[in-house]
Protein backbone atom coordinates (compact mmCIF):
# COMPACT_ATOMS: atom_id res chain seq x y z
CA UNK A 1 0.00 0.00 0.00
CA UNK A 2 2.88 2.38 -0.47
CA UNK A 3 2.52 5.77 -2.01
CA UNK A 4 4.42 6.09 -5.26
CA UNK A 5 5.85 9.44 -4.20
CA UNK A 6 8.47 8.01 -1.84
CA UNK A 7 7.39 4.50 -0.95
CA UNK A 8 9.98 4.44 1.80
CA UNK A 9 9.12 2.52 4.92
CA UNK A 10 10.36 3.75 8.32
CA UNK A 11 13.12 1.56 9.81
CA UNK A 12 12.26 -1.01 12.45
CA UNK A 13 13.30 -0.23 16.01
CA UNK A 14 14.22 -3.64 17.35
CA UNK A 15 15.44 -4.89 20.71
CA UNK A 16 13.49 -2.49 22.94
CA UNK A 17 9.89 -2.89 24.02
CA UNK A 18 8.59 0.48 25.21
CA UNK A 19 5.76 -1.22 27.10
CA UNK A 20 7.99 -3.61 29.02
CA UNK A 21 7.72 -2.74 32.73
CA UNK A 22 11.44 -2.03 33.11
CA UNK A 23 11.33 0.35 30.12
CA UNK A 24 8.19 2.03 31.43
CA UNK A 25 10.05 2.70 34.69
CA UNK A 26 13.21 3.91 32.94
CA UNK A 27 12.20 5.03 29.43
CA UNK A 28 15.28 7.13 28.63
CA UNK A 29 17.34 4.51 26.76
CA UNK A 30 14.24 3.81 24.64
CA UNK A 31 13.71 7.53 24.01
CA UNK A 32 17.31 7.97 22.85
CA UNK A 33 17.16 4.94 20.54
CA UNK A 34 13.85 6.12 19.11
CA UNK A 35 15.09 9.64 18.40
CA UNK A 36 18.41 8.55 17.00
CA UNK A 37 17.21 5.89 14.56
CA UNK A 38 14.94 8.07 12.41
CA UNK A 39 12.21 10.73 12.56
CA UNK A 40 9.64 7.91 12.33
CA UNK A 41 10.26 4.25 13.22
CA UNK A 42 8.22 1.09 13.14
CA UNK A 43 7.55 -0.95 16.30
CA UNK A 44 7.01 -4.35 14.73
CA UNK A 45 5.57 -6.18 17.72
CA UNK A 46 2.77 -3.67 17.96
CA UNK A 47 2.46 -2.84 14.27
CA UNK A 48 2.57 0.89 15.00
CA UNK A 49 4.80 3.81 14.10
CA UNK A 50 6.65 5.81 16.75
CA UNK A 51 7.98 9.36 16.70
CA UNK A 52 10.38 10.77 19.31
CA UNK A 53 11.83 13.99 17.90
CA UNK A 54 10.38 17.30 19.03
CA UNK A 55 10.00 18.90 15.60
CA UNK A 56 8.13 15.99 14.02
CA UNK A 57 5.88 15.53 17.05
CA UNK A 58 4.87 19.15 16.78
CA UNK A 59 4.24 18.92 13.04
CA UNK A 60 1.98 15.90 13.46
CA UNK A 61 0.03 17.45 16.34
CA UNK A 62 -0.54 20.53 14.20
CA UNK A 63 -1.75 18.49 11.22
CA UNK A 64 -5.18 17.18 12.17
CA UNK A 65 -6.15 16.96 8.50
CA UNK A 66 -3.76 14.05 7.88
CA UNK A 67 -3.37 12.69 11.41
CA UNK A 68 -6.71 11.95 13.04
CA UNK A 69 -7.61 11.55 16.70
CA UNK A 70 -10.92 9.81 16.00
CA UNK A 71 -9.54 6.28 16.22
CA UNK A 72 -8.33 6.91 19.74
CA UNK A 73 -5.33 8.41 21.51
CA UNK A 74 -4.19 5.01 22.78
CA UNK A 75 -2.44 2.22 20.90
CA UNK A 76 -5.67 0.41 19.92
CA UNK A 77 -7.78 1.51 17.01
CA UNK A 78 -11.06 2.00 18.85
CA UNK A 79 -12.99 1.73 15.59
CA UNK A 80 -12.01 -1.95 15.20
CA UNK A 81 -14.39 -4.73 16.29
CA UNK A 82 -13.60 -5.85 19.82
CA UNK A 83 -11.55 -2.75 20.52
CA UNK A 84 -14.45 -0.39 20.77
CA UNK A 85 -14.64 1.97 23.66
CA UNK A 86 -16.75 5.12 23.78
CA UNK A 87 -14.57 7.89 22.39
CA UNK A 88 -14.15 11.12 24.32
CA UNK A 89 -16.02 13.85 22.45
CA UNK A 90 -13.25 16.28 23.29
CA UNK A 91 -10.09 14.22 22.89
CA UNK A 92 -10.94 11.52 20.40
CA UNK A 93 -12.67 13.61 17.76
CA UNK A 94 -11.78 15.67 14.68
CA UNK A 95 -13.39 18.77 13.18
CA UNK A 96 -16.15 19.63 12.62
CA UNK A 97 -17.58 17.69 15.61
CA UNK A 98 -14.70 18.67 17.87
CA UNK A 99 -14.77 22.38 17.16
CA UNK A 100 -18.07 23.34 18.76
CA UNK A 101 -17.51 21.18 21.84
CA UNK A 102 -14.04 22.55 22.37
CA UNK A 103 -15.27 26.14 21.98
CA UNK A 104 -18.02 25.63 24.57
CA UNK A 105 -15.59 24.22 27.14
CA UNK A 106 -12.95 26.87 26.38
CA UNK A 107 -15.54 29.55 27.14
CA UNK A 108 -16.42 27.97 30.47
CA UNK A 109 -12.75 27.64 31.52
CA UNK A 110 -12.15 31.39 31.32
CA UNK A 111 -9.10 33.01 32.95
CA UNK A 112 -11.50 34.88 35.22
CA UNK A 113 -13.13 31.69 36.52
CA UNK A 114 -9.77 30.01 37.04
CA UNK A 115 -8.42 33.02 38.94
CA UNK A 116 -11.44 32.93 41.22
CA UNK A 117 -10.05 29.75 42.78
CA UNK A 118 -6.73 31.29 43.75
CA UNK A 119 -7.71 32.00 47.38
CA UNK A 120 -8.90 28.46 47.90
CA UNK A 121 -5.79 26.96 46.29
CA UNK A 122 -3.49 29.23 48.34
CA UNK A 123 -5.24 28.41 51.61
CA UNK A 124 -5.03 24.71 50.96
CA UNK A 125 -1.36 24.99 49.91
CA UNK A 126 -0.52 26.89 53.09
CA UNK A 127 -2.19 24.26 55.26
CA UNK A 128 -0.48 21.38 53.51
CA UNK A 129 2.99 22.92 53.47
CA UNK A 130 2.60 23.85 57.17
CA UNK A 131 1.79 20.25 57.97
CA UNK A 132 4.87 19.03 56.06
CA UNK A 133 7.05 21.45 58.02
CA UNK A 134 5.69 20.00 61.25
CA UNK A 135 6.50 16.50 60.04
CA UNK A 136 9.93 17.34 58.58
CA UNK A 137 9.95 13.93 56.86
CA UNK A 138 7.08 12.87 54.65
CA UNK A 139 6.01 11.26 51.39
CA UNK A 140 5.40 14.05 48.90
CA UNK A 141 2.89 11.95 46.97
CA UNK A 142 0.78 10.53 49.77
CA UNK A 143 0.98 13.39 52.25
CA UNK A 144 1.27 16.50 50.11
CA UNK A 145 0.50 16.30 46.41
CA UNK A 146 -2.33 13.78 46.30
CA UNK A 147 -4.38 15.32 49.16
CA UNK A 148 -3.77 18.83 47.81
CA UNK A 149 -4.75 18.11 44.19
CA UNK A 150 -7.68 15.91 45.12
CA UNK A 151 -9.02 18.64 47.39
CA UNK A 152 -8.56 21.71 45.18
CA UNK A 153 -9.28 20.10 41.82
CA UNK A 154 -12.36 18.30 43.09
CA UNK A 155 -13.70 21.62 44.39
CA UNK A 156 -13.01 23.40 41.11
CA UNK A 157 -14.37 20.69 38.87
CA UNK A 158 -17.22 19.96 41.28
CA UNK A 159 -16.81 16.19 41.51
CA UNK A 160 -15.94 14.07 44.55
CA UNK A 161 -12.49 12.45 44.19
CA UNK A 162 -11.68 9.85 46.90
CA UNK A 163 -7.99 8.90 46.81
CA UNK A 164 -8.13 5.10 46.54
CA UNK A 165 -10.80 5.24 43.85
CA UNK A 166 -8.95 7.86 41.81
CA UNK A 167 -5.67 5.94 41.92
CA UNK A 168 -7.24 2.61 40.94
CA UNK A 169 -9.32 4.10 38.12
CA UNK A 170 -6.39 6.22 36.90
CA UNK A 171 -4.19 3.13 36.71
CA UNK A 172 -6.89 1.38 34.72
CA UNK A 173 -7.41 4.24 32.27
CA UNK A 174 -3.76 4.97 31.64
CA UNK A 175 -2.94 1.31 31.13
CA UNK A 176 -5.96 0.67 28.89
CA UNK A 177 -4.50 3.05 26.34
CA UNK A 178 -1.51 0.74 26.01
CA UNK A 179 -1.24 -2.91 24.91
CA UNK A 180 -2.87 -5.83 26.72
CA UNK A 181 0.16 -6.64 28.90
CA UNK A 182 1.00 -7.41 32.51
CA UNK A 183 0.57 -3.77 33.54
CA UNK A 184 -2.82 -3.57 31.87
CA UNK A 185 -4.12 -6.80 33.39
CA UNK A 186 -2.92 -5.95 36.91
CA UNK A 187 -4.53 -2.53 36.75
CA UNK A 188 -7.83 -3.92 35.46
CA UNK A 189 -7.96 -6.33 38.36
CA UNK A 190 -7.25 -3.65 40.96
CA UNK A 191 -9.85 -1.34 39.44
CA UNK A 192 -12.66 -3.90 39.57
CA UNK A 193 -14.00 -2.87 43.03
CA UNK A 194 -14.21 0.77 41.89
CA UNK A 195 -15.94 0.36 38.54
CA UNK A 196 -19.39 1.02 39.91
CA UNK A 197 -18.20 4.19 41.62
CA UNK A 198 -16.51 5.26 38.39
CA UNK A 199 -19.67 4.74 36.35
CA UNK A 200 -21.57 7.24 38.52
CA UNK A 201 -18.69 9.48 39.61
CA UNK A 202 -19.63 12.37 37.31
CA UNK A 203 -23.41 12.07 37.44
CA UNK A 204 -25.17 15.38 37.49
CA UNK A 205 -26.88 14.76 40.83
CA UNK A 206 -23.56 14.84 42.69
CA UNK A 207 -21.84 17.86 41.13
CA UNK A 208 -21.16 21.01 43.17
CA UNK A 209 -23.06 24.22 42.37
CA UNK A 210 -20.91 26.81 40.57
CA UNK A 211 -18.33 24.22 39.55
CA UNK A 212 -17.02 23.48 36.06
CA UNK A 213 -19.08 20.30 35.94
CA UNK A 214 -22.26 22.14 36.74
CA UNK A 215 -21.55 24.80 34.12
CA UNK A 216 -21.01 22.10 31.51
CA UNK A 217 -24.34 20.47 32.38
CA UNK A 218 -26.01 23.90 32.24
CA UNK A 219 -24.43 24.59 28.83
CA UNK A 220 -26.02 21.34 27.65
CA UNK A 221 -29.42 22.48 28.99
CA UNK A 222 -29.05 25.69 27.02
CA UNK A 223 -28.20 23.85 23.84
CA UNK A 224 -24.65 25.24 23.69
CA UNK A 225 -23.40 21.66 23.84
CA UNK A 226 -25.13 18.87 21.95
CA UNK A 227 -27.57 16.87 24.10
CA UNK A 228 -26.06 13.88 25.87
CA UNK A 229 -22.45 15.03 25.61
CA UNK A 230 -22.00 16.92 28.91
CA UNK A 231 -21.34 13.83 31.00
CA UNK A 232 -18.60 12.65 28.67
CA UNK A 233 -17.00 16.11 28.80
CA UNK A 234 -17.00 16.18 32.58
CA UNK A 235 -15.45 12.71 32.59
CA UNK A 236 -12.75 13.84 30.19
CA UNK A 237 -11.91 16.90 32.30
CA UNK A 238 -11.79 14.94 35.55
CA UNK A 239 -9.80 12.11 33.99
CA UNK A 240 -7.47 14.42 32.12
CA UNK A 241 -6.76 16.76 35.01
CA UNK A 242 -6.38 14.62 38.12
CA UNK A 243 -3.69 11.97 37.65
CA UNK A 244 -1.68 14.09 35.23
CA UNK A 245 -1.45 17.07 37.61
CA UNK A 246 -0.46 14.76 40.46
CA UNK A 247 2.20 13.24 38.20
CA UNK A 248 3.51 16.65 37.10
CA UNK A 249 3.78 17.96 40.65
CA UNK A 250 5.49 14.71 41.61
CA UNK A 251 8.10 15.33 38.93
CA UNK A 252 8.69 18.85 40.31
CA UNK A 253 9.22 17.71 43.90
CA UNK A 254 11.34 14.72 42.85
CA UNK A 255 13.69 16.95 40.87
CA UNK A 256 13.73 19.87 43.33
CA UNK A 257 14.92 17.51 46.06
CA UNK A 258 17.72 16.37 43.76
CA UNK A 259 18.71 19.85 42.52
CA UNK A 260 19.78 21.87 45.58
CA UNK A 261 20.94 24.75 43.36
CA UNK A 262 17.48 25.04 41.80
CA UNK A 263 15.75 24.97 45.19
CA UNK A 264 18.10 27.73 46.40
CA UNK A 265 17.15 29.84 43.37
CA UNK A 266 13.46 29.32 44.11
CA UNK A 267 13.89 30.16 47.80
CA UNK A 268 15.59 33.42 46.77
CA UNK A 269 12.84 34.16 44.22
CA UNK A 270 9.67 32.12 44.84
CA UNK A 271 8.08 33.56 41.67
CA UNK A 272 10.40 31.26 39.70
CA UNK A 273 8.02 28.51 40.77
CA UNK A 274 5.29 29.96 38.53
CA UNK A 275 6.72 28.05 35.59
CA UNK A 276 8.09 25.08 37.53
CA UNK A 277 5.27 22.81 36.39
CA UNK A 278 6.13 23.36 32.74
CA UNK A 279 9.73 22.35 33.44
CA UNK A 280 8.66 19.38 35.58
CA UNK A 281 6.42 17.99 32.85
CA UNK A 282 9.05 18.66 30.22
CA UNK A 283 11.41 16.46 32.25
CA UNK A 284 8.87 13.72 33.07
CA UNK A 285 5.93 14.13 30.74
CA UNK A 286 2.85 12.67 32.48
CA UNK A 287 1.36 11.69 29.11
CA UNK A 288 4.40 9.84 27.75
CA UNK A 289 2.74 8.91 24.48
CA UNK A 290 -0.40 9.78 22.57
CA UNK A 291 -1.50 8.29 19.26
CA UNK A 292 -2.73 9.70 16.00
CA UNK A 293 -3.78 7.78 12.88
CA UNK A 294 -3.00 8.69 9.25
CA UNK A 295 -6.24 9.39 7.38
CA UNK A 296 -4.63 8.29 4.10
CA UNK A 297 -1.16 7.24 2.94
CA UNK A 298 0.84 10.29 4.04
CA UNK A 299 4.33 11.30 2.96
CA UNK A 300 6.10 12.55 6.04
CA UNK A 301 9.75 13.13 6.98
CA UNK A 302 10.96 11.13 3.97
CA UNK A 303 8.70 8.14 4.58
CA UNK A 304 5.28 6.99 3.51
CA UNK A 305 3.05 6.38 6.49
CA UNK A 306 0.26 3.92 5.78
CA UNK A 307 -3.36 4.84 6.22
CA UNK A 308 -4.84 3.52 9.48
CA UNK A 309 -1.54 2.35 10.98
CA UNK A 310 -1.35 4.06 14.35
CA UNK A 311 1.39 6.53 15.08
CA UNK A 312 2.66 7.01 18.65
CA UNK A 313 3.99 10.44 19.54
CA UNK A 314 6.40 9.93 22.42
CA UNK A 315 6.01 13.32 24.07
CA UNK A 316 8.46 12.45 26.84
CA UNK A 317 11.16 11.76 24.24
CA UNK A 318 10.48 15.00 22.35
CA UNK A 319 10.68 16.96 25.57
CA UNK A 320 14.25 15.79 26.08
CA UNK A 321 15.28 15.88 22.42
CA UNK A 322 18.80 17.36 22.28
CA UNK A 323 17.95 18.65 18.78
CA UNK A 324 15.58 21.05 20.55
CA UNK A 325 16.87 21.59 24.08
CA UNK A 326 20.20 22.59 25.63
CA UNK A 327 21.08 20.28 28.53
CA UNK A 328 17.79 18.41 28.05
CA UNK A 329 18.30 16.21 31.11
CA UNK A 330 18.75 19.15 33.48
CA UNK A 331 15.83 20.42 35.60
CA UNK A 332 16.19 24.16 35.13
CA UNK A 333 13.66 26.56 36.65
CA UNK A 334 14.91 29.39 34.43
CA UNK A 335 14.29 27.52 31.21
CA UNK A 336 10.70 28.72 30.74
CA UNK A 337 9.59 26.03 28.29
CA UNK A 338 5.86 26.91 28.26
CA UNK A 339 4.46 26.90 24.76
CA UNK A 340 7.49 24.97 23.46
CA UNK A 341 7.40 21.63 25.28
CA UNK A 342 4.76 19.20 24.07
CA UNK A 343 3.72 17.71 27.42
CA UNK A 344 0.35 19.48 27.14
CA UNK A 345 0.21 18.55 23.46
CA UNK A 346 -0.11 21.32 20.93
CA UNK A 347 -2.54 22.19 18.14
CA UNK A 348 -6.28 21.88 18.50
CA UNK A 349 -6.16 19.18 21.18
CA UNK A 350 -3.72 21.05 23.42
CA UNK A 351 -4.59 20.45 27.09
CA UNK A 352 -7.70 22.49 27.76
CA UNK A 353 -7.21 22.49 31.54
CA UNK A 354 -3.57 23.55 31.57
CA UNK A 355 -4.34 26.85 33.30
CA UNK A 356 -5.96 24.97 36.18
CA UNK A 357 -2.89 22.74 36.51
CA UNK A 358 -0.61 25.79 36.39
CA UNK A 359 -2.57 27.55 39.12
CA UNK A 360 -2.56 24.46 41.34
CA UNK A 361 1.17 24.13 40.85
CA UNK A 362 1.98 27.82 41.27
CA UNK A 363 0.10 28.05 44.58
CA UNK A 364 1.68 24.92 46.06
CA UNK A 365 5.24 25.46 44.86
CA UNK A 366 5.52 29.19 45.62
CA UNK A 367 4.25 28.46 49.15
CA UNK A 368 6.84 25.68 49.43
CA UNK A 369 9.65 28.03 48.31
CA UNK A 370 8.52 30.75 50.74
CA UNK A 371 8.58 28.52 53.80
CA UNK A 372 11.07 25.72 53.15
CA UNK A 373 14.81 26.32 53.22
CA UNK A 374 16.13 22.97 52.05
CA UNK A 375 14.60 19.80 50.68
CA UNK A 376 16.37 16.49 50.14
CA UNK A 377 15.43 12.90 49.38
CA UNK A 378 14.68 10.76 52.44
CA UNK A 379 14.82 7.63 50.27
CA UNK A 380 14.40 6.52 46.68
CA UNK A 381 11.32 7.67 44.79
CA UNK A 382 9.20 4.69 43.71
CA UNK A 383 7.38 4.41 40.38
CA UNK A 384 3.73 3.68 39.66
CA UNK A 385 4.32 2.12 36.23
CA UNK A 386 1.60 2.65 33.63
CA UNK A 387 1.57 2.09 29.87
CA UNK A 388 0.73 5.69 29.04
CA UNK A 389 1.35 7.80 32.12
CA UNK A 390 4.59 8.56 33.90
CA UNK A 391 3.85 8.96 37.59
CA UNK A 392 5.66 8.29 40.85
CA UNK A 393 3.94 6.42 43.66
CA UNK A 394 6.18 7.60 46.48
CA UNK A 395 8.64 10.49 46.93
CA UNK A 396 10.15 10.43 50.44
CA UNK A 397 11.46 13.90 51.37
CA UNK A 398 13.08 15.69 54.28
CA UNK A 399 12.73 19.49 54.68
CA UNK A 400 14.11 22.24 56.89
CA UNK A 401 12.11 25.45 57.50
CA UNK A 402 13.27 28.99 56.76
Amino acid at each position, binding site marked *: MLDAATGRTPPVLAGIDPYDTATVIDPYPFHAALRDLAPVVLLKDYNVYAVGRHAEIQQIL*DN*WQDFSSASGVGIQDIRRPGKFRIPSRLVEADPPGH*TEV*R*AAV*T*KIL*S*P*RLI*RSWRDLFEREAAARVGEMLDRREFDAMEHLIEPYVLKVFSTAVGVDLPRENVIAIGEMRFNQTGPDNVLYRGAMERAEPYLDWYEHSVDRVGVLPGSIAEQIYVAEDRGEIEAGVAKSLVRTLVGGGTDSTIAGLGACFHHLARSPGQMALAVADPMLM*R*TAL*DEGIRMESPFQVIYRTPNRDVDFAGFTLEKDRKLGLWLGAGNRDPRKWDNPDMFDLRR*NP*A*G*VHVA*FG*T*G*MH*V*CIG*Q*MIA*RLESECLLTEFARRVKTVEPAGESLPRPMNQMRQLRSIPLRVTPQ
Partner: protein
Amino acid sequence: MKAIYIVPGGAEVAVDVPANTSLMRAAVSNGVDGIIGDCGGAASCATCHVFVDPAFLGLLPAPGWNEGQILDCTAADRQANSRLACQILMTEALDGIRVTIADPQL
Protein backbone atom coordinates in the same frame (compact mmCIF):
# COMPACT_ATOMS: atom_id res chain seq x y z
CA MET B 1 14.23 46.02 17.11
CA LYS B 2 11.44 47.82 18.87
CA ALA B 3 7.79 47.26 19.63
CA ILE B 4 5.50 50.07 20.72
CA TYR B 5 2.75 49.19 23.18
CA ILE B 6 -0.19 51.52 23.75
CA VAL B 7 -1.09 50.69 27.34
CA PRO B 8 -4.50 51.08 28.98
CA GLY B 9 -4.86 54.82 29.58
CA GLY B 10 -3.25 55.67 26.26
CA ALA B 11 0.48 56.04 27.05
CA GLU B 12 3.00 54.67 24.54
CA VAL B 13 5.82 52.44 25.75
CA ALA B 14 8.68 51.45 23.42
CA VAL B 15 10.52 48.23 24.26
CA ASP B 16 13.55 46.60 22.65
CA VAL B 17 12.60 43.13 21.49
CA PRO B 18 15.21 40.61 20.29
CA ALA B 19 14.46 38.60 17.13
CA ASN B 20 12.22 35.58 17.73
CA THR B 21 11.07 36.86 21.13
CA SER B 22 7.32 37.18 21.54
CA LEU B 23 5.68 40.51 22.22
CA MET B 24 4.11 38.95 25.33
CA ARG B 25 7.47 37.89 26.74
CA ALA B 26 9.05 41.27 25.95
CA ALA B 27 6.17 43.13 27.62
CA VAL B 28 6.21 41.00 30.77
CA SER B 29 10.01 41.18 31.12
CA ASN B 30 9.88 44.97 30.79
CA GLY B 31 6.94 45.49 33.13
CA VAL B 32 4.61 46.87 30.46
CA ASP B 33 1.19 47.46 32.04
CA GLY B 34 -1.81 45.44 30.98
CA ILE B 35 -0.24 42.27 29.60
CA ILE B 36 -0.54 39.33 31.96
CA GLY B 37 0.58 36.26 30.03
CA ASP B 38 -0.72 33.75 32.56
CA CYS B 39 0.02 30.64 30.49
CA GLY B 40 3.60 31.60 29.74
CA GLY B 41 3.14 31.73 25.98
CA ALA B 42 1.08 28.69 25.07
CA ALA B 43 -1.87 30.51 23.41
CA SER B 44 -4.05 29.09 26.15
CA CYS B 45 -5.20 31.84 28.49
CA ALA B 46 -6.14 34.92 26.43
CA THR B 47 -4.44 37.34 28.85
CA CYS B 48 -2.03 38.90 26.33
CA HIS B 49 -4.75 40.16 23.98
CA VAL B 50 -3.63 43.06 21.75
CA PHE B 51 -5.03 45.01 18.81
CA VAL B 52 -2.40 45.20 16.07
CA ASP B 53 -1.90 48.41 14.09
CA PRO B 54 -3.41 47.69 10.66
CA ALA B 55 -0.14 48.73 8.99
CA PHE B 56 1.51 45.67 10.53
CA LEU B 57 -1.38 43.23 10.61
CA GLY B 58 -0.76 41.88 7.12
CA LEU B 59 2.86 41.10 7.96
CA LEU B 60 1.86 38.56 10.62
CA PRO B 61 1.29 34.88 9.90
CA ALA B 62 -2.41 34.03 10.25
CA PRO B 63 -3.49 32.90 13.73
CA GLY B 64 -3.22 29.17 14.39
CA TRP B 65 -6.26 27.09 15.25
CA ASN B 66 -5.85 27.51 19.02
CA GLU B 67 -5.20 31.20 18.86
CA GLY B 68 -8.30 31.61 16.72
CA GLN B 69 -10.44 29.76 19.23
CA ILE B 70 -8.94 31.46 22.30
CA LEU B 71 -9.49 34.88 20.70
CA ASP B 72 -13.22 34.16 20.80
CA CYS B 73 -12.93 33.95 24.60
CA THR B 74 -11.15 37.23 25.37
CA ALA B 75 -12.45 39.54 28.11
CA ALA B 76 -12.40 42.56 25.77
CA ASP B 77 -14.35 41.83 22.60
CA ARG B 78 -12.42 40.43 19.68
CA GLN B 79 -11.81 42.83 16.78
CA ALA B 80 -10.57 42.11 13.27
CA ASN B 81 -7.06 43.06 14.39
CA SER B 82 -7.08 41.06 17.64
CA ARG B 83 -4.09 38.81 18.29
CA LEU B 84 -2.36 37.15 21.22
CA ALA B 85 0.96 38.87 21.86
CA CYS B 86 2.54 35.52 22.77
CA GLN B 87 2.06 34.40 19.17
CA ILE B 88 3.74 37.45 17.61
CA LEU B 89 7.46 36.78 17.27
CA MET B 90 9.71 39.73 16.48
CA THR B 91 11.32 39.81 13.03
CA GLU B 92 13.10 42.54 11.09
CA ALA B 93 9.93 43.22 9.11
CA LEU B 94 8.06 43.86 12.37
CA ASP B 95 10.54 46.41 13.72
CA GLY B 96 8.46 49.32 15.04
CA ILE B 97 5.23 47.31 15.30
CA ARG B 98 2.49 49.09 17.26
CA VAL B 99 -0.02 47.21 19.37
CA THR B 100 -2.78 48.47 21.64
CA ILE B 101 -3.16 46.37 24.76
CA ALA B 102 -6.76 45.22 25.18
CA ASP B 103 -8.48 46.19 28.40
CA PRO B 104 -9.60 44.28 30.38
CA GLN B 105 -7.62 41.06 30.02
CA LEU B 106 -9.66 39.14 32.61
